[in-house]
């Protein structure tokens, strides 16, 4: 038996049409959506605290489901998705409403709750992984804490006949592993299959990143039609090995190189990639290009799951103020350098209280910082954008950044280009910390709709 699992998104803001194409033409058994970045839950909590009408699930859930559900219903494709964010049950209710509108109000939808442990984190948290210190040493107010759950509750919901499963925080590979466990009946002691399936999930979780997205380097790594990427499809065998492919007629490419880039994405020790379901060892992988745009992955091994779950903690930590202005033509870089000096002096005069300040020249050193080579004086950049940012404890301090950039409009250097300020040039910082919590302290619960 082979099952076909398609990717529907790599993040919240991902394109929707490739998900629709997979749903329509992928002959999928399962369509899986990954929509949460590390800070998604804390950002959702902050938004909810300001706007009680914010429902707390993926703001594109309706757009995604209106695009894919007609195809999934017609093709018998089941859906696993972490679009529930901080309100999986709300997401399930919304999904039921969309289903009813399509004349399929009887379709069973499950919501997996239990990832949010904000109210208990003080008691559950071990050392903070980033600092080695304790939770009490984190400055600021905790807005959210959530454990990364594994595949278990999703499998249970699928076993109980849910056609669509909506979760909160679940480890990304687990979203893809769950349909495999459900379809093949793997037992929890089948660690090698869990590892293989988790590795396939890791390759799938970033959508087009394995099908040629985020890959092109002209002349070095060329990618056909990079405006027309498909999201990947995994044809998974009972032993967890799989062929990764994409829809015919789409752009992009999938080959050994795209697979290797994605395999190591966000991985530290490749022999010990920890998920809630198992520990994956990528170092034994075999990657075969079996046909154009068809790559077979096998041979990945693993170890049993750890006794703990990773938890993310979001804490309010102050503000970042930022703004930018521009120079072009003769002497652009020299002007940018003098403008930097002006700002530094101004910040001293207005006594800016900042934990960190950064003044960069876009086109010169803004991205690679001190690694950037000094521009050749004979070929100075024609345009330079000066970008300034400061992290502060209070909003009032962060607002000084925009105020000083405003001053450059008429009291700065000649030919300073500047946007009229619009919108908020200050944003709140919700820092993300990690800890490990006892697996037994996190109890998933499933609601059916």
């Amino acid at each position, binding site marked *: 038996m082979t099952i076909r699992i398609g990717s529907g998104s790599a993040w919240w803001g991902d394109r929707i049409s490739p998900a629709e194409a997979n749903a329509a033409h992928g002959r999928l058994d399962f369509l899986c959506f990954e929509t949460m970045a*590390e*800070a998604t839950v804390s950002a959702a909590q902050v938004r909810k605290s300001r706007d009680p009408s914010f429902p707390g699930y993926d703001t594109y859930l309706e757009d995604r489901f209106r695009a894919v559900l007609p195809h999934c219903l017609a093709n018998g494709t089941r859906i696993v998705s972490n679009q529930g964010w901080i309100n999986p049950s709300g997401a399930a209710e919304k999904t039921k409403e969309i289903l009813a509108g399509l004349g399929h109000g009887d379709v069973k939808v499950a919501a997996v709750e239990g990832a949010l442990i904000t109210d208990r984190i003080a008691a559950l948290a071990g050392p903070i*992984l*980033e600092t080695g210190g304790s939770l009490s040493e984190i400055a600021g107010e905790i807005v959210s804490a959530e454990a990364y759950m594994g595949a278990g509750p999703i499998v249970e919901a699928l076993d109980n006949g849910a056609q669509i499963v909506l979760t909160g925080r679940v480890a990304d590979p687990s979203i893809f592993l769950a349909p495999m466990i459900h379809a093949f009946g793997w037992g929890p002691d089948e660690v090698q299959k869990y590892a293989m399936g988790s590795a396939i999930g890791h390759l799938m979780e970033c959508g087009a990143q394995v099908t040629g997205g*985020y890959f092109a*380097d002209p*002349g*070095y*790594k*060329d*990618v*056909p039609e990079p405006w027309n990427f498909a999201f990947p499809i995994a044809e998974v065998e009972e032993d967890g090995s799989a062929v990764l492919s994409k829809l015919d007629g789409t752009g992009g*490419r999938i080959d050994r*190189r795209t697979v*290797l*880039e*994605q*395999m*190591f*994405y*966000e*991985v*530290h*020790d*490749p*022999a010990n990639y920890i998920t809630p379901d198992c520990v994956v060892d*990528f*170092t*034994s*992988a075999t*990657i075969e290009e079996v046909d154009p745009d068809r790559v077979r992955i096998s041979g990945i091994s693993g170890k049993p799951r750890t006794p703990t779950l990773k938890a993310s903690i979001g804490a309010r*930590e102050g503000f*970042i103020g*930022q703004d930018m202005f521009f120079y072009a033509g003769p002497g652009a870089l020299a002007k940018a350098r003098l403008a930097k000096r002006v700002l530094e002096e101004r910040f001293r005069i207005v006594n800016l209280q900042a934990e*960190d*300040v*950064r003044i*960069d020249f*876009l086109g010169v050193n*803004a*991205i*690679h*910082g*001190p*690694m950037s080579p000094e521009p050749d004086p004979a070929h100075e950049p024609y345009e330079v954008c000066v*970008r300034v*940012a*400061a*992290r502060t404890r209070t909003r009032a301090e962060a607002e000084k950044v925009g105020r000083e950039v405003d001053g450059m409009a008429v009291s700065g250097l000649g030919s300073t280009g500047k946007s009229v300020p619009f919108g908020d040039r200050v944003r709140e*910082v*919700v*820092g*993300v*910390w*990690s800890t490990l919590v006892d697996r037994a302290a996190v109890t998933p619960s499933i609601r059916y709709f």
Partner: protein
Amino acid sequence: MHVSLRELAHSRSGDKGNTLNIAVIAYEAEFYPHIEAQITEEAVARHYAGVVKGRVTRYAVDRLGVLNFVCEGTLGGGVSRNLCLDNYGKALASGVLTMTVEIPDDLAPRLRSAQTATS
């Protein structure tokens, strides 16, 4: 001959908290031993001086021709705190490709720029 690492390998970075990982992936198996011998932890730490503020740890996966560099203290305290415009450090992966590697002259025809477009 000395060549840019870009001729021999491609790269991808990923973030976790304040730590960046940079995978360096050899285009050809015969390039890998030269990369492995010369693109060391110390060399990468020197190359990223001022950008990587913590420890650099290298994991070598010989079987796949990949070196994975785990660079602590690189993302300004984490993506939500980082004042760099590229707060995820996504564009830092390409920085490693400007390092140089000494290779035997007979590999010259195999260099990436010597190949025609692959698609």
